[in-house]
């Protein structure tokens, strides 16, 4: 019954806390241990304190591991980029090139095409930096949609009891490019906040809103990603792109500067620096 709560025994609970914190004298500690054998209520109270410690430890560890999983992905990506090419492969490539200096007609045609296409597009006005839609073009150029909507389960209560099912639905709608329905499912997940990693939910919402060109909603979603989460720096990058898509180059530059300075992901840092340079050039035209 909600109104019929157990009585909180101040002295016993203080004693238990001191016992667990190792603050009791040898004599008092022995007394507590003797009492635990004979007083089941007292033993139940101690069990609750121990369970609190166990649950908080485990949930904190799980949360940290979720954030670290994100960092591991990033660092693995960086290690792939930094990994020097296998020396044996390099030698064999060089050997292969020795006897084959001339280009085939097909290669020459491909080079001409690669050089010609940007020029044609430029004359058609597609890459016109003076155009008012240039920031939006840049946003689309730099935007890379994440492959998956990653949402980790947390230790909290799954009140609806269907988090796993909802996760699959989000991924399936996202793969079908049905961002509207993906958003609806994500909103359902957000209502059951303690059972999922909310930063990942907000991040996924931001991506869907971005793809639907709902810039204001995307901004609000990315801003909700918590700063202690590993996904935060990724969210900042997409936040900058959203501001760009919205045409707000001032705010985009502000966020990009932070990404370019502080982001621990080398690849993203580099992209932010490139984009910043293009935006600075834009100002001077």
């Amino acid at each position: 019954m909600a109104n019929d709560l157990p009585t909180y025994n101040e002295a016993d609970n203080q004693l238990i806390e001191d016992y667990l914190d190792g603050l009791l004298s040898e004599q008092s500690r022995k007394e507590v241990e003797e009492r635990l054998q004979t007083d089941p209520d007292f033993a139940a109270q101690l069990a609750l304190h121990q369970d609190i410690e166990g649950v908080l430890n485990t949930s904190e560890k799980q949360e940290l591991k979720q954030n670290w999983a994100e960092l591991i992905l990033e660092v693995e990506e960086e290690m792939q980029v930094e990994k020097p090419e296998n020396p044996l492969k390099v030698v064999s490539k060089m050997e292969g090139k020795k006897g084959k200096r001339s280009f085939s007609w097909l290669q020459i045609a491909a080079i001409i095409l690669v050089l010609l296409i940007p020029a044609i597009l430029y004359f058609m006005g597609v890459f016109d930096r003076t155009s008012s839609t240039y920031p939006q073009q840049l946003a689309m150029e730099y935007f890379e949609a994440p492959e998956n909507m990653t949402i980790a389960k947390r230790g909290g209560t799954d009140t609806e009891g269907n988090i796993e099912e909802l996760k699959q639905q989000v991924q399936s709608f996202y793969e079908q490019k049905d961002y509207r329905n993906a958003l609806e499912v994500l909103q359902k997940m957000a209502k059951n906040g303690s059972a999922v990693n909310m930063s990942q939910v907000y991040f996924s919402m931001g991506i869907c809103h971005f793809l639907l060109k709902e810039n204001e909603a995307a901004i609000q979603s990315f801003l909700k990603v918590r700063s202690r989460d590993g996904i935060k720096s990724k969210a900042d990058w997409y936040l900058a792109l959203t501001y760009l898509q919205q045409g707000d180059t001032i705010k985009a530059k502000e966020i990009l500067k932070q990404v370019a300075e502080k982001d621990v992901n080398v690849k993203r840092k580099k992209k932010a620096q490139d984009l910043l340079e293009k935006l600075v050039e834009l100002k001077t035209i």
Partner: protein
Amino acid sequence: MTQTELNLLFKKCYKSNIPQLIHLTESKEAAQEVYQEAFYVFLKKWKQGAIQNQQNLCGYIFRVAKNKWLENKRKSKEISWDSILMPNETLTDDFDQLEVAENVLEQKKRAQLILAAMKELGDNCRKLLMETIVYKVSLKKLQEELGYASYNAVKVAKHQCKKSLIRKYWKLEGEKIE
């Protein structure tokens, strides 16, 4: 150290430690697991103020990871001895299995209620409980960090927070039963 600096350290040490840990554990997954365990230990020690003037933090984390791996290896051996000494029949009884499953379910419910109660606490209380219970930061250190007037003041605050947590837990448990 800020959160960003901690993330940087995590990545930097991951890069330098993971090849050796893969060599040691002979599996990338096991290496990643043991590295995270070691970083958790480092995080706790750092919060407690037990790591000061440590020149080579990545080296420290590697040593912890190596010890963790040895400990896990030893434990897994102990478990196998356990299973040898305890015949399988002890758990094949339907009633025993049911009882174990019920206990697990009960523990799971309890964990959910504790986390829900924790969520209802204010930010300061949550921080105080997490720092003392999970990270074992001393009350003396917290008194300085959180600006309490005295050791006794922080001790009382911690006790009040725990009391509030227990009461909220009871209330939620009562609502569930109802």
